[in-house]
């Protein structure tokens, strides 16, 4: 087990290094640089001003020197300094990371939980109205643009019905503590997490359903029936446990989609996460922040992968013991 973890961490480090280098080069392909952006925002500039900024940001050095200094500092877990915000990138990211983690984890749990649940129901009522309903809804979720859902949800639940807060992470300066604060954050989390999880939920519904129908044909399900077990128990104990294995694998692989999709959701719901930070850093050519977010979100995806792998190992004894 330890060996497995070490191997994984080692591989992850290599992947992260590649991501750093690739993105570093990619970002510098973009037109303009942070100095130009800041000049543009200030509504004034002269060559001296821009030269000052470039020197301050270290942009006057040759690209390979910048790359080397960046990579070597990342290797020491130092993500550098934000040109614009005059703050260490790590601080900026750490401020935002909890929000994104909360959002993507909740979306992950919601999509997987509800997806598997609905898929199970659909599979066990194959061909009946419940199945048709679930499959149709899943198909619609699968085909609807996320942001459109988000906008409609805000209109309905926030503006019209006033049930849920329409934006933000928590009520600003509410002074809530303890349970009150948790509930407040939870209320803010509902819409973003559901919207983000919706698409993947649809994916998992379809996958679970298909997988369960597939597993249903296995001999051991027939064995279980021959024992005289109740169908519900067979579905839960024999079919579902085996059927979710491919779903879990897929979920791990799609973590990248989840973390990536957060950009969109964070925009609509003003969720103060790193997706939004990335988008802004991109527009502002705040290279270090952008790279930092990429490194951290890639690390998040790797973490999701690892978690699903571990979950897989827990469920499947065949992998556990080899």
């Amino acid at each position: 087990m330890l060996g497995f973890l070490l191997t994984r961490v080692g591989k992850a480090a290599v992947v992260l290094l590649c991501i750093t280098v690739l993105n570093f080069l990619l970002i510098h392909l973009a037109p303009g640089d942070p100095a130009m952006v800041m000049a543009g925002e200030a509504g004034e500039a002269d060559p001296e001003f821009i030269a000052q900024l470039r020197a301050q940001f270290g942009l006057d050095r040759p690209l390979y020197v910048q790359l080397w200094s960046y990579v070597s500092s990342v290797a020491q877990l130092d993500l550098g300094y934000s040109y614009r915000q005059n703050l260490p990138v790590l601080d900026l990211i750490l401020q935002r990371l909890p929000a994104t983690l909360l959002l993507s984890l909740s979306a992950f749990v919601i999509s997987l939980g509800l997806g598997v649940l609905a898929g199970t129901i659909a599979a066990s009522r194959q061909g009946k109205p419940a199945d048709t309903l679930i499959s149709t809804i899943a198909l619609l979720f699968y085909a609807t643009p996320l942001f459109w859902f988000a906008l409609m949800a805000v209109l309905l639940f926030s503006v019209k019905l006033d049930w849920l807060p329409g934006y933000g992470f928590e009520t600003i300066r509410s002074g809530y503590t303890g349970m009150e604060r948790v509930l407040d954050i939870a209320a803010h989390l509902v819409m973003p997490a559901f919207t983000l999880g919706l698409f993947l939920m649809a994916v998992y519904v379809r996958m679970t359903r298909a997988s369960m129908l597939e597993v249903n044909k296995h001999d051991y399900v027939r064995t279980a029936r021959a024992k005289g077990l109740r169908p519900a128990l067979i579905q839960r104990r024999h079919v579902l446990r085996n059927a979710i294995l491919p779903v879990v694998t897929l979920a791990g692989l799609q973590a990248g989609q989840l973390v990536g999709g957060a950009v969109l959701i964070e925009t609509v719901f003003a969720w103060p996460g790193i997706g939004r930070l990335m988008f802004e850093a991109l527009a502002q050519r705040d290279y270090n922040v952008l790279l930092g977010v990429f490194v951290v979100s890639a690390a998040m995806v790797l973490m999701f992968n690892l978690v699903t792998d571990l979950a897989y190992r827990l469920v499947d004894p065949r992998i556990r013991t080899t």
Partner: protein
Amino acid sequence: MLDFLKRFAGNRGAVIGALLLVVTLLLAIFSPMLYPQSPWAIAQRPFLEPFTTEGYLMGTDTLGRNVASGLAHGAYISLLIGLISTLVSLAIGIPLGACAGYFGGWVDDILMRVTEFFQVIPTFAFAVVLVAILQPSLTSIITAIALVSWPPVARLLRGEVLALKSREFIEAAQLSGQSSTTIILRQIMPNTLSPVVVMSSMMIATAILTESALSFMGLGDPEIMSWGYMVGAGRTVIRQAWWISFFPGLAILLTVLAFNLIGEGLNDALNPRLRKRG
């Protein structure tokens, strides 16, 4: 083939999907004839409600442009983006996956590391960065979508090829003196066709969704009237004029739905495991 068509036609969803797609295709083909004027033309007063004025079935947008015309012209663009980006990702994913699966060993190791690498980068965020860096244009959007969508293709192909490689007919082909290239192209590839076709239809759907999401983030090509662009442009006035973003949104939904339904239909019709069930 006839058999396949029969099975496909037996799937109600697939038939609906195919019909929807045909409508979209007709719209794309005949848009220049239906609406000869440029969809950008400011033709009427803005915010004309739908179903009220002849010739403006779906109303006009914030600038007085014909929504129906935009929808018709956008069909072509959306299909184009979906199709080309899918073709490009297939062009990347299929050879990579096939080589990884067939040759195994270090080739597989390296190619799969590369694939993993692309899968670890958050998909949509990466697309956003690519489009922003290359500057929004039809080419950059297609490139970005293709670059983030090929890894599943490579994985699928690798899996299929791995499974096929151990099939005895491949060994028989090796024994009959055929070269690796011949074996991959003639013996293996045709057998991976059905999962690839199924996946492609889903990928086209996802590509159309991604393009619309990019447009929403302000990363659309300003020169092309796509559905994503229309939704993005109309969303700010969604409270005043629901129809501007509703119709293109619906068009996206239906087209994506069509491709998904077709994908499922193809899957049922092509997948021999499920075939037995019917």
